[in-house]
């Protein structure tokens, strides 16, 4: 206990490797494909028979493609198992390809701080199927906003998330999901359509009565001042 309150004993990254393990170094001349795979990929294959669809090693990073229904169990096991300890969730996001036949991918970037490992877990969602994956919020609290953002930008539903609302777009936004490839860069409507909507908009719905009454107050001004204002004279000169 420190003077001011509870004091924590530090958690050191790389602690599971032991003091004899060599210090990590900057990766040099990484091959495009076929580098050394992360040992966790093979361990998942042994633990969950049939759940691993494919293992890719691209630029030294291991990607494990998992079956959608098993991904929550796999990530839970990666987090809890003493030989894996993927305790840190770097990122949750999704990828949609320009080739619209290609499935949409949900990507989890996991780190094991005790073993200093990095693993990418992917689930492929075929086009035409519901965009629905299990949430990992119950495993990693940090997944909260990342999953909300993926829902906001791609429309992927994370089953089990406690509060799946839009995050960056406003909650009433109903024109689609901005990072999908069928969403145009300029936004949902053309410039002319946006202008037409702005002109047709009812300003009283947006401004308070106080603000609107400033314009009406013109009628209350003395007649000579109104004339001068209409001529464009500067008031007070």
């Amino acid at each position: 206990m420190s003077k001011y309150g509870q004091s924590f004993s530090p958690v050191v990254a790389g602690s599971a490797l032991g003091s004899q393990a060599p210090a990590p170094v900057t990766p040099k001349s990484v091959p495009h494909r076929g580098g050394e795979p992360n040992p966790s990929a093979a361990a998942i294959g042994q633990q969950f028979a049939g759940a691993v669809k494919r293992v890719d090693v691209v630029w030294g990073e291991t990607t494990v493609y998992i079956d959608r229904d098993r991904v929550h169990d796999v990530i839970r096991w990666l987090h809890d198992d003493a030989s894996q300890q993927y305790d840190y969730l770097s990122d949750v996001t999704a990828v949609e390809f320009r080739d619209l036949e290609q499935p949409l991918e949900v990507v989890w970037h996991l780190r094991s701080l005790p073993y200093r490992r990095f693993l990418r877990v992917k689930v492929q969602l075929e086009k035409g199927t519901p965009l629905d994956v299990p949430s990992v919020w119950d495993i990693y609290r940090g997944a909260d906003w990342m999953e909300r953002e993926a829902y906001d930008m791609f429309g992927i539903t994370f089953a089990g998330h406690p509060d799946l609302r839009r995050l960056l777009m406003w909650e009433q936004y109903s024109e689609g999901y901005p990072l999908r490839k069928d969403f145009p860069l300029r936004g949902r409507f053309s410039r002319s359509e946006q202008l037409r909507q702005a002109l047709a908009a009812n300003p009283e719905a947006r401004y308070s009565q106080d603000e609107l009454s400033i314009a009406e107050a013109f009628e209350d001004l003395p007649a000579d001042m109104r004339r001068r204002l209409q001529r464009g004279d500067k008031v007070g000169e």
Partner: protein
Amino acid sequence: MATTKRTVEVALSTTGLDAQGRPQRRPLAVDEGGNVVTMEPPTAMEPDLEGEHMLINLGPQHPATHGVLRLVLELDGETVVRCIPHIGYLHCGFEKIGEYRQYNQIIPWTDREDYLNSPGNNVAFALGAERLFGIEVTERCKVLRVMACELSRIISHLVWLGTTCIDIGAYTPFLWAFQQREKVYELLEAWIGARLTTTLTRVGGMGADIPDGWTDMLSAFVSTFPNVVDEIDRIITRNGIWVGRTVGLGVMSPEEAINYGLSGPMGRASGVAFDVRRDFPYLDYETYDFDVAVGTNGDVYDRYLVRMEELRQSTRILAQTLKRLPDGPVNVDDILPPKSRATSDMESMIHHFKQVMEGPRPPIGESYVAVESPKGEKGYYMVSDGSSKPVRWRIRPPSFVNLSAIPRMVEGHLLSDVIAINASIDIVMGEIDR
């Protein structure tokens, strides 16, 4: 006795002593008969508000929310019982725009996202794109990039320090911090010509080599800057007001910090000894001699201490880069051949034209490269389908993830402590909303 308070005649009488033995002062009033009497304190207390909660809206235009963060706070008296953050007021769709830009054209966008750390973002993006292209940069370029990263860590921490001092009520360190920040901006201006939006790197190299005499400017800064850090340290580290307003606030245990995905000084203050520079190194950081500052209490005060130590460690790394800066080329020729060759040789000119107009094409693949930004683990995830523009460019913003833990940190604290805790996260809304 009904008394009426007359503002003109309100004087102060000394009718007794208060608990500290000082004369007690009460305003005078005039009663119905015209006599001057001492006003009695009101006997009717305020209505009992126990059990009634008040909702207040902090931001998005509040100066202490560091941008356009909006926090809806449910208060019981002055205690926060619930906090609901709202973000997105600065959302510009950077990731969407990146899908329509060549790799080198995205680098200016990385300036504008975490705008206090522009050189660091440029380096991070270039590293990610180079992994995707399979390029190894030159030795001189690596050392220059380390200089850029550490300078931008210093300016980002100085802005954090200055604005947090203002939030907590100290004005002087703000001026000292911003004076030093100005010196770093002079260095960046001499290097690349821009101050805030630097666009310092290119895929495969840098936008410019350092000018003559620049290393002397940097070594002058490296030799004087620690004195200023010591001065700020002397004025606030043991200051009673500073300590009273920061100790024991927003405590996160190491296990919680890892589970919430906290990184950078936020995680390290909680005792998580995780630094991307040391644990997943890039730019040969393993060859530099520096310490990873780790706190033990996980509160606002430890976050301050960790950042102060990082300022010193960054200066240490800068001194080492000055010693080892090798001569040689800065850019590799794979991506952009030298302009001199393009003006003398037809094939090189065509190649140059195609590389500039159509953009270099990486092979099909993907890369996630994380760097230690001043805020934490900053990752760029890029997916290529073989064309000159990425299919997906994802920013993993550290302060976005750190901010998502704010309800856990502020609930149960006082309203005034929300300001200190929010300041300790070191948020940049440009990065959070993107």
